[in-house]
Every structure is written in C-alpha cells, then in structure tokens.
C-alpha cells in the first residue's frame, strides 16, 4: 500500500506508457515526466507568490492580497492574465533579438536544472552520473542570460543591474560549488540520487543527513547564503534594488517576458532549494525511521517548501547589503570558510569512525568561526546594530 503511494507517479507513468508501441515507450515516458515538471513548478510558483505576498504582509503588519478569490488565493491567476494581456514593449534602441532571447535562455537554463533533481524514490528524470556537475553547468549559463537582458535593453540601469548580478552570481557560484564539493567528497559521488541514498540510513531512528555533521552544518549555512545570493533574493537583491536601479536587468521588460523573468527567479529558487535539500537535508528521505511509510515525494516537497519559507522570511527580515559589503563578504569571509570546510571534510573522511573525527572536526570549525567573530568584533566590523530612525 505505502509502496504504491510512494511510487504512485512512477506506476502511473508505466501504466500510461504501456498503451504505446514499445519503440515509443521510453521517449514518451521522458516527455511525460518533462511535461509534469514543466507544469508542476509554475503552479508551485503561482502558489508561492501569493504565499510570499501574504507572508510578507503578515511580517509587515498589513493584509496581503485578499480580494480575488477566497483570501485572495486567485491573485496569481489575475496577475497571470494581466501579464499575458499586457503590451510587450521593446525599447526602440534595444537589440531586439538578444532582448527577446534573454528571458527564454534564462527559463530554459533554469528548467534544465530540474532534470537531475531526485524528487522522490526513483523519481528523477535523468539519473546522470555527473548530475551535480550538470546542475552547476546549467546554473552557470543563467548568468549569460542575465547579461544578455541587461546589455540588450540599452539602459544604464539594466546594464548596471546586469553587471552587478553577474559579478554577484559568479562570486557566490564559487561558494556554492565549494560548499557542495564537501558533500561530494564524503558521499563519493556526483550523482544526486546516490547522494540521497548515502544519507538514507538511520541510527536510533535518526537520519544520517549531512546537515547533522560538523562540516555538513557549516557547509549548509554557506550553501544557504550562496543560494540566496545566486537567486538574487533579499538581502542580496542588489541587482534589482529598487532604490538604486529601478528594477535591475529587467527594467525594460514588460508583459510576458517580464513574467518569464519572474518565473525564472522563482524556478531558480525552487531548484536551488531542491538541490540544497538533496545535498544536505537528505533529499526525499524521512526525518525519522518510523516515518518511512510516508511517501518520499511528500518529504522532498515539504522540505522544499520549508526552505522557500525561510527565503521569504529572510526577505521580510533582513535589510539589503551594499555592493562592497556583498563582495567582501563573499571573498573575505565565506570563501575562506568554505576552503576550511573542505579541509574539515577531508579530515572527516580520513579520521575513521569513532568520536575522534567528531571532536577534531567540530573543534576546528568552532575555533575558526569564534575566532573570526572575535576578530571582526575587535575590528568593530560587526557588533550590536544601532538603528537610526527618522526623527
């Protein structure tokens, strides 16, 4: 029974495919899963927008959208219709072809990422041997799309926004890679499904998720930071910092193309959260061994939504950084810590089993972080925040 629930989609696909001639079955299956992904995540996106707006509203003491439909849940539909029916403006001096290509490339590249994410037991589109590498390759190619958008609109704001975005994404991509490499080092595989399998063990009913190891925790924090920056979410949303450059690289976009950008941002958020879940939070594995009967895809998506919620929460809470702060943070704090984390992971790998590795690894990390914190405090870079309210 539970197996059936767990594998329901796989079984469904088999059943549907079985009507076709044998030659077509395999491609048809792929097409089917692709179609599901292509439909599913935009739906999730619609849902998320309304949740985000309502959540932010709660955080900021106001009602969010509450007119269209029950509790304003049909708001995304209205937005969708609006953005589809709006006029698609292309600036006269813009580089039309590139201007058009940019959002397409972005969305396609982002969609590619989902191909390797295992969304449940046996629920991965292509179980690639180099899945992680593929994911990062695709992630890397989004930057170009952003640049295209910014450059092609022939608009200073757009160009600056794009440049900022690209610089920021490159800087944080390094961090993203390094923090993921630790997982690869320990699990010994680049295939995401294998990585999940490696975490799908339990001792005393508790899972072996990598976040529950010293290096895993540190790596996950780094990963979360980098992910926020990669997706240009607050507090790293300088590329579209309204107060400085109107809307960053998609200032000159309207209507459907803008919607595509918007979609792209959220899809990127989903896929990167999914990757984080897969790498550190045990993917589709249950948090307790006795909860194993719950279908795996439920776990995956609930973890996904959890991290999405954290994203929203951060956006509601944290103020935006300055560009120099952003870069310094990336290169002078996060990157060194990631390198240290690599070392720690290596130690973890080679110190064998037993308490020694726990002691050594957590010792090193704690010393490093506390030391860094004390140093910064002495330098006065960090400390109790002092707000200046408008008198």
């Amino acid at each position, binding site marked *: 029974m539970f197996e059936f629930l767990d594998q329901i989609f796989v079984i469904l696909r088999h059943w549907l495919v079985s009507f076709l001639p044998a030659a077509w079955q395999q491609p048809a299956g792929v097409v089917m899963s692709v179609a599901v992904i292509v439909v599913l995540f935009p739906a999730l996106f619609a849902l998320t927008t309304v949740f985000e707006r309502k959540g932010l509203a709660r955080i900021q003491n106001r009602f969010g959208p509450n007119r269209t439909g029950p509790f304003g849940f049909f708001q995304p539909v209205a937005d969708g219709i609006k953005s589809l029916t709006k006029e698609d403006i292309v600036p006269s001096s813009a580089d039309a072809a590139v201007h058009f290509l940019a959002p397409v490339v972005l969305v396609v590249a982002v969609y590619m990422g989902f191909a390797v994410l295992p969304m449940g037991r046996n629920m991965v589109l292509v179980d690639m*041997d180099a899945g992680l*590498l593929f994911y*990062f*390759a*695709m992630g*890397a190619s989004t930057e*170009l799309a952003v640049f295209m958008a910014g*450059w092609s609109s022939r608009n200073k704001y757009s160009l600056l926004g794009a*440049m900022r975005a690209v610089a920021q994404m490159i800087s944080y991509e390094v961090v993203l890679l390094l923090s993921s490499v630790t997982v690869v080092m320990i699990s010994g595989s680049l*295939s995401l499904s294998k990585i999940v399998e490696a975490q799908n063990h339990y001792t005393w009913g508790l899972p072996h998720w990598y976040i529950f190891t010293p290096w895993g925790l540190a790596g996950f924090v780094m990963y979360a930071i980098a992910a926020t920056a990669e997706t240009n979410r607050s507090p790293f949303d300088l590329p579209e910092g309204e107060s400085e450059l109107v809307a960053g690289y998609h200032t000159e976009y309207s209507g459907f193309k803008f919607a595509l950008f918007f979609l792209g941002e959220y899809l990127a958020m989903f896929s990167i959260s999914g990757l984080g879940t897969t790498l550190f939070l045990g993917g589709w594995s249950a948090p307790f061994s006795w909860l194993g009967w719950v279908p795996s895809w439920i776990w995956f998506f609930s973890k996904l939504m959890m991290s999405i919620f954290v994203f929203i929460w951060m956006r509601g809470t944290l103020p935006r950084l300055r560009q120099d702060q952003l870069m310094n943070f990336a290169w002078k704090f996060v990157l060194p810590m990631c390198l240290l984390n690599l070392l720690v992971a290596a130690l973890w790998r080679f110190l064998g089993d037993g308490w020694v590795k726990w002691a050594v690894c957590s010792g090193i990390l704690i010393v490093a972080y506390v030391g860094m914190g004390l140093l910064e405090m002495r330098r006065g870079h960090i400390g109790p925040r002092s707000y200046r309210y408008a008198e």
Partner: protein
Amino acid sequence: MSLVFYLIAALVVAGGLAAMMLKNTVHCALAVTVAFAGLALLFLNLDAQFAGFAQILVYIGAVAILVVFAILLTKGSETPKDGVFSQTWLTGLAVASAVFAVLGWAVLQTAPMLPRATATPVVSVQQIGQALIGQYVLPLEIIAVLLTAALIGAVIVAIHEKEGAN
C-alpha cells in the same frame, strides 16, 4: 554519421563563423558562446559526459562572462570607424584557408586507415576522479598551481594602478 551530429556540427560551425564575422563585439561573444555550447554537445555525443559539462561550466560559465566583461570594460561594444577587419585581412584569410586545406587534406588522406566506430566506452565520473588523483595527480597539481598563478597574475595585470604609479 547520425543526423544529430550534422545538426550539432552545423551549429558549432555557424556559431564560430558568426563569432568571427559579426560586427558587434558583444554579438560575437554571444555567438562564440553558442559555438562553445555546440562543442559541449559534441562532447556529449562522444560519450564524454564529464568533459562536456566541464566545457559548459568553464566556457559558458566563466570564459564567456570574462569576455563580455572585458568587452564592456574596453568600450569594445561600439564598432570602430575604420572597419572591424584589419588591413591585411585578405592574407589572413588566405593563410587560414591554407591551414584548413592542409588539415582537411591530412584527414582525408588518413581517413581510410582511421578506426571504424568502436563500442561506446563506459566511463564513470568516479573513474575520472581516480585517474585525476591517481595516475594524473602530478598534472593536476601543476594545473592547480598554474590556475592560482593565473588568478593572481590576472588580478595584478588588470588592477588599476594607484595615482603616482608610472
């Protein structure tokens, strides 16, 4: 030869040609990106998964970005008044075509004795990794040093001198 190969090959060549012939430098950069992507596809078509993804990651993710940055930093995006091709472009073209002629001739000369299609080799990333830190560990180290040196060197070369220097 499969159709896929011809399509990708056409894509690559088209990208390359566009990159070398377009007027607007940024367009060239984007075109070369297309060529890079096509090459990555060719690698995949050759069952070299790892190399393919590495190609995308490095060339599209890094080199292309570097190039566009460089273009924007050197005001290269506006087309120069006296043409995009150098005065001696004709000889250049001739030489290049000569090179192609020789290479192609060589290939065709040896074509008959080239091996026919072989069984697709199965290479797991793990094998590659083990080869990298096993048999090829020395090159790997050297590459690491080289990349570090290049990083520092690029920064030092491109860094803006303070006032007073030179």
